[in-house]
């Protein structure tokens, strides 16, 4: 039996092409995962350098570096890149790399579809950024200047950049739907014999619910931007009162996608964070069932709370109350998750390698993001904070701290497994402290200027905000530059370093740690049996 498998293995799989063709044609989940993660890292730097331009402009009051239109374009493209081209591909990259290893599958269930899902991403990144280049040649006036939310009527008036962004979103949506189909099928159909749903690794749960959210909401976004496109060019009146439509309707459609999107970005991280915690606390995770049910509860609530993003746009009072209370209800399952995470560490024999540092920092900073979200969920308070820098600081605590820093924890956690080398622990820790401190230096002042009334997405501001903005800019540049250290650590880890053992971490639990580091090109051609 095993000999036939090996023969089959040789004849079929190890003759993959080399060079660029290997990556263009690959159906291997590890290759595709690597491409996703690399793409994500590159786009993270691209999106990050855009925001450094913004922060440089905001270093002091008045207009110094750029005109307001370009400022707006950078803001919108920064957000779209960070959300769709940095965070989501990173999570999908981990899913590709780790899900088959964690559930004992030979590969993802639909490998060619998987390849297509990745290769749609570079064209959409080109579509997003092409308008900048076109503007240099006198075609159009640059990228979309509406922010990432595309609100009409501004987006109906906007130039060629809006059209490009609409199609970029379409392509990114196709990619996400393909990825989600693949992940759902893999989780339902490819688990090792004996691994029931309630024995799955938490990461699989996080991604399963994420994939369901994507399937339910990404097509709605596609519909919304399609209506925008026809409003722009074909004379429909979806978002225009003269024809009986309503610009607010776009906000409803957009945020029906946009709010679940927050959980789409966070749920995969909530999946592997408990795994990192149990590894470095050297005990099983606390409350597995409670965590699974909480993830489901949050996934369900995610699609019924969208209107809290535009309380001030105008809606009936009963609607305001409903969206306020349902939003606040999310804090209950989230509190259960926080309790389980902390309780997993309780009385464990903890050690603080870089992934654990990032995870503990993540819990604290993401906690701040969650609590400030509770403030914004309050209708009365939101009237004051809406569209201020308080909101900016809040969602960077959830999406940078809660998203990107979680992803970084995952990178350090799995990098030795993926590459077969240990990363430089000392540099990793340096990277953590630089990131965590400069992140807070950047965004804590933004809470204050936001509470004092500084509006977001404006290139100029009143003199009283000058000091805080200066501090914020300094923090942002340190934060941005310390990510170069991250790149250096990853590259040097890929190239060489201390050999990693199969288990890598002393307390590691799960199937992926039973394989060699790095795992063979095709792992689990025979599925393991889980008891």
């Amino acid at each position, binding site marked *: 039996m095993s000999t036939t498998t090996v023969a089959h293995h040789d004849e079929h799989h190890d003759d993959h092409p080399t060079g660029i063709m290997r990556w263009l044609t690959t159906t291997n989940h590890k290759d595709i995962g690597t491409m996703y993660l690399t793409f994500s890292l590159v786009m993270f730097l691209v999106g990050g350098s855009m925001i450094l331009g913004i922060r440089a402009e905001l270093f002091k009051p008045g207009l110094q570096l750029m005109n307001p239109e370009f400022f707006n374009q950078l803001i919108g493209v920064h957000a779209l890149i960070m959300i769709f081209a940095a965070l989501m591909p990173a999570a999908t990259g981990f899913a590709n790399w780790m899900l088959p290893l964690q559930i004992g599958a030979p590969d993802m269930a639909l490998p060619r579809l998987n390849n297509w899902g990745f290769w749609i991403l570079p064209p959409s990144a080109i579509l997003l950024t092409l308008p900048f280049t076109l503007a240099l040649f006198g075609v159009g006036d640059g990228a979309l200047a509406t922010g990432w939310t595309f609100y009409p009527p501004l987006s109906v008036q906007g130039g060629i950049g809006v059209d490009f962004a609409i199609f970029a979103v379409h392509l990114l949506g196709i990619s996400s739907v393909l990825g989600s189909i693949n992940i759902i*099928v893999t989780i339902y159909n490819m688990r090792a014999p004996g691994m029931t749903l309630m024995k799955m690794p938490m990461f699989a749960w996080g991604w399963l619910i994420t994939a369901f959210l994507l399937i339910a909401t990404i097509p709605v976004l596609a519909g919304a931007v399609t209506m925008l496109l026809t409003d722009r060019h074909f004379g429909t009146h979806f978002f225009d009162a003269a*024809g009986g439509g*309503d610009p607010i309707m776009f906000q409803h459609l957009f945020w029906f996608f946009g709010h679940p999107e927050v959980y789409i970005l966070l749920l995969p991280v909530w999946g592997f964070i408990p795994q990192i915690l149990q590894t470095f606390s050297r005990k099983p995770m606390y409350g597995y069932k409670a965590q699974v049910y909480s993830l489901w509860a949050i996934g369900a609530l995610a699609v019924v709370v969208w209107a809290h993003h535009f309380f001030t746009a105008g809606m009936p009072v009963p609607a305001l109350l409903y969206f306020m209370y349902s939003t606040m209800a999310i804090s209950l399952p989230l509190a259960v998750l926080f309790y389980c995470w902390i309780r997993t560490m309780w009385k464990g024999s903890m050690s603080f390698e870089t992934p654990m540092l990032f995870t503990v920092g993540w819990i604290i900073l993401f906690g701040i993001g969650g609590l400030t979200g509770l403030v914004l969920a309050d209708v009365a308070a939101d009237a004051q904070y809406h569209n201020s820098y308080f909101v900016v600081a809040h969602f960077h605590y959830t999406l940078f701290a809660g998203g990107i820093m979680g992803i970084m924890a995952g990178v350090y956690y799995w990098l030795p497994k993926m590459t077969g080398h240990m990363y430089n622990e000392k540099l990793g820790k340096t990277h953590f402290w630089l990131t965590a401190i400069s992140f807070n230096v950047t965004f804590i002042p933004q809470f204050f200027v936001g509470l004092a009334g500084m509006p977001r997405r404006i290139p100029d501001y009143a003199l009283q905000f000058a000091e805080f903005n200066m501090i914020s800019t300094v923090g942002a540049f340190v934060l941005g530059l310390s990510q170069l250290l991250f790149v250096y650590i990853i590259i040097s880890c890929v190239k060489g370093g201390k050999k990693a053992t199969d288990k890598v971490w002393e307390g590691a639990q799960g199937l992926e740690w039973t394989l060699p580091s790095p795992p063979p090109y095709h792992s689990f051609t025979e599925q393991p049996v889980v008891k």
Partner: protein
Amino acid sequence: MASHSENHYFVPHGSIYPALISVGLLSMASGFVFNVTGSDTRLDGSFKNPALSYLATPGKYMMYLGLAIILTMMFKWLSTVVTESITGQYKKWEDKSFRIGMIVFICSEVAFFAAFFGALFYMRVLSVPDLASYAPDITPYKDFLSTWPSQGPGGVVLGETYKPDASFHPMTWSGLPLINTLLLLSSGATITWAHWGLIKNNRKQLIIGLFLTIALGVTFLCCQAAEYHHAYTEMGLTLKSGAYGATFFMLTGFHGFHVTIGTLMLIVIWLRSIKGHFTPEHHFGFEGVAWYWHFVDVVWLGLYIFVYML
């Protein structure tokens, strides 16, 4: 190989087609933007971007090129899959993957249509009544009444004056739409009959059933084309007819697009049936198309009730 067929999953060899489809998508999307930017006109017929009108023609060719690449590569990709299927690479395990995948894909399509149904309900229930609800001294839409179908109150939109068309008539539920409903419902029955034929290994019933389904689908599309023609030439009902026109044409248009795709898929499996593909035990290709066809059917019922009847 047969010895481990049940616990060995088929991981296909690499393929360049997905990456090339993406190139086609890039070409088609950017070509579309160039074309539409170059050819966009205002209501009075003048160009919106006269300085960029030279983009229209190259944009059009980029679109065609992209579309050609996508169609060619999809054809080659699906041919590979069909070859793998008839050479027996796909066993029960792979088959289950395809089934779950198709179900999830159809769910995503449901969500896509939900966006447009959502827009329809929002306009009917909220935005049109709202526009008519304000006191006359604070609204520019004094004489506007909340009725459905509505073309909206009219007004100045981004510097252009939009006026509801006086000759406007909404679509009725009887006549062509009713015939279309009957056509699609019958096609649901004929494809099930074809499926029974396949399960009983009655090839003749399979092939005739599929042929009937295709014929009904094509007839549906012809009726819809006639309906659109009638709307544009005689009823004053166009894509630009306010809330009703936008939702009517976008919903029925996307549905018609899905019927077209479904009919193409039916033609493919019909040709495959004639060539002798599919067995009573192993015919996911058939079932996937059948599921898709039923989905298109159900969407039509929703359309018929909410767009035409109510």
